[in-house]
């Protein structure tokens, strides 16, 4: 609803907004964030969270470039860059489930660990892919950007996972009440580790799309993705308490942010003011959804 109204508004203010090319551009812009949001949604719905997503993206990108610059074939570099965040996710999952610490704090710490590693590896310098591996970020399939195709596949897959699979259902129940999940015979620790690992897979994908599009990278390339993914999911109705919210909602949250950003760009609004606007949207969205809850 909000999205339709906003789109109409931007279209009215600048007809170029509604052109096919621009709409595809919107989706291309949100591809990385969208995939990261799906990763965050999986965690939020199961009662977890991961604030180290951004650093995982940076670390993966830095490692890929460093390997390519060191003469490793692009394929192996990319594969390594994909597997690395999966390992990071696994590690986060192990620490969270075995230590029983609050995931918010654990992953906040891990955020610095991964960022620090990325800094060490890159030496703080700009690293480049030297023109390799552009397909994922810049390629097109029958006219549609590959990154957009990947985004849609990921959204559908996560939606299906949560709705139709046992694994997904167990995640939802664990998010709804971890004690109940445990007392119903779910191996809560193992499920958490599996889920963090799976969300690592998505982060890996997001990272590949990003590095492929940018072609060169700094250690802080992923900075802020964790918070924007969190915000998008929450705008889309996923809650902090777990168990609630839908994948499609979270996806619409991302689309909303994308449209606003793109629309403001087209209207030539300064990026400083854009930041302000996006912050406002997040707060309004959360307050409005909570007002409904209070009224009930």
């Amino acid at each position: 609803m909000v999205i339709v109204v906003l789109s109409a508004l931007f279209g009215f203010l600048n007809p170029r907004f509604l052109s096919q090319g621009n709409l595809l551009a919107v989706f291309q812009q949100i591809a990385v964030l969208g995939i990261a949001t799906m990763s965050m949604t999986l965690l939020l719905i199961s009662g977890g969270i991961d604030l180290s997503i951004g650093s995982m993206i940076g670390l993966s990108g830095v490692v890929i470039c460093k390997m390519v610059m060191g003469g490793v074939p692009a394929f192996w570099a990319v594969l390594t860059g994909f597997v690395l965040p999966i390992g990071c996710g696994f590690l986060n999952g192990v620490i969270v489930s075995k230590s029983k610490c609050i995931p918010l704090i654990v992953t906040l710490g891990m955020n610095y660990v991964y960022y620090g590693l990325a800094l060490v590896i890159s030496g703080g310098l700009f690293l480049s892919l030297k023109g390799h591996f552009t397909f994922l970020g810049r390629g097109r399939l029958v006219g549609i950007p590959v990154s957009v195709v990947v985004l849609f596949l990921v959204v559908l897959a996560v939606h299906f996972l949560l709705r139709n699979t046992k694994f997904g259902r167990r995640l939802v129940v664990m998010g709804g009440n971890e004690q109940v999940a445990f007392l119903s015979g779910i191996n809560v620790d193992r499920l958490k580790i599996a889920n963090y690992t799976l969300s690592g897979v998505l982060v890996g994908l997001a990272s590949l799309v990003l590095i492929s599009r940018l072609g060169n990278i700094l250690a802080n390339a992923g900075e802020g993705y964790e918070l924007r993914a969190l915000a998008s999911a929450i705008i889309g109705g996923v809650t902090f308490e777990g168990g609630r919210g839908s994948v499609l909602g979270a996806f619409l949250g991302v689309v909303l942010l994308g449209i606003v950003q793109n629309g403001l760009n087209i209207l030539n609004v300064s990026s400083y003011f854009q930041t302000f606007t996006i912050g406002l949207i997040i707060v309004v969205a959360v307050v409005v959804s909570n007002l409904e809850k209070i009224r009930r």
Partner: protein
Amino acid sequence: MKGISFDLYPGEIHGLVGENGAGKSTFIKILSGFLRPDGGEIAVHGQKFHFLTPHLAQSLGIQTIYQENILVPQISVAENVFAGREIVSALGIVNHRETIARARRIIDSLGVSLPVEERVENLSVAEQQLVKIARAIAFEPRVLILDEPTAMFNVNETRMVLDLVKNLAQRGIGIIYISHRLEEVLEVASRITVLRDGYRVACHNHVRERVDLATLTREMAGRSVNVFQREKGAILSEVVLAVKELRYAPSSPPVSFSLRRGEILGIAGLVGSGRTEIFKTLFGFGRSYGGEIWIQGRQVTIRSPQDAIRYGLGYLTEDRQRTGLALGLSVTKNATIPSLGDHFGGFLIPLEKERRLVEEYVKSLDVRTPSLEQEVRFLSGGNQQKVILARWLLKNSQIIIFDEPTIGIDVNAKSEIHRLIARLAQEGKSIILISSENPELIALCDRVLVVRHGQIVRELTGDEINEENIISCAFGVTAGERL
């Protein structure tokens, strides 16, 4: 609430009883100023009002002690007693010494002992209840409303609260006493008003002479409710569960018992006697410190609920809301968690088949819910309990442990749950029923084990299962000696 008349004299204890939803809470909220009545009049000491506000109610000397915890756990008893109207010096600085001294005076005057300077979070539930009362008394009320003051208490603690209430009445405070425990109301109240569906159905002015439990129950339910009596016969079937010398703590005494197919085994004992811990350990969510568990003639090791469930155990915990249900999820999702792997092979859940299965159990247990997608938080306590039961039936659990299955459930739903338990035993399930409600144990159980200090002190069978035996064993009093 429809046209209730109610009066209260100084120094009187007026009992207020009724099923859940009878209008008791609405009535209290009107008296304490949180709700406005649509009509009628409230007269306090001759002053007439059409409605009250919380502030007005307080200044008229009406104090209400709700079930909910209103204390701040991190600060001391004394600070809690005076929270909101701290005793301050001229400069607005809190006078700690005076606060403590005055709190101590109030608590002493109640005839109880409480550590005044201790933080509230370190107190037992019963002691916290006393702090709430002390807090209300500090306002020097003329009317004190107590809503289920003993809901979470064992017999000793209840005794303490009841004595305190009588003591307060003697000081001239008018007390409205609301409780589901009718025996208590009968003991302390000089008059009893019964509410049903928002109407006042009876007001007994001479409680001592003319009222008994049966009368109150009948009036509350609106019809004569027989306590459901299960037909019992000799259980000669095979032993499905044998527990030998199980220990739930390093220092706990070993516990041994057995359970037959189709049998209902009652577990009695005071809250805190260790009775729940024994079964938590059996179900794998408390650590075991030795002992053997035999199920269907095979020795098994249970390290987690996962193991227990695999061997055919099901557990309905005593706290439905916290450990029984994911409140924000649907009936279906709550019901099928443990059995996802049984009914549907592979990775996927066939949603249509799942819906049909749950529907079948919802029908057979008569769960009243508008739809299978309804969030369980909106169901009544009895229906919530049935959803959890459906969970274990879907799992086809053969040994089902009920821990206080009817706590906080209204009279009619209670008797429904009792019938279901009896039916399950009839169908060949084996039941362990942990309960503080002795009538429940007496009506349903083939045998009752009484637990005291973590130990099974007595096994009661047949006619031995009666209130007197259960209580005397639970308290460790020898026959003849009364409480």
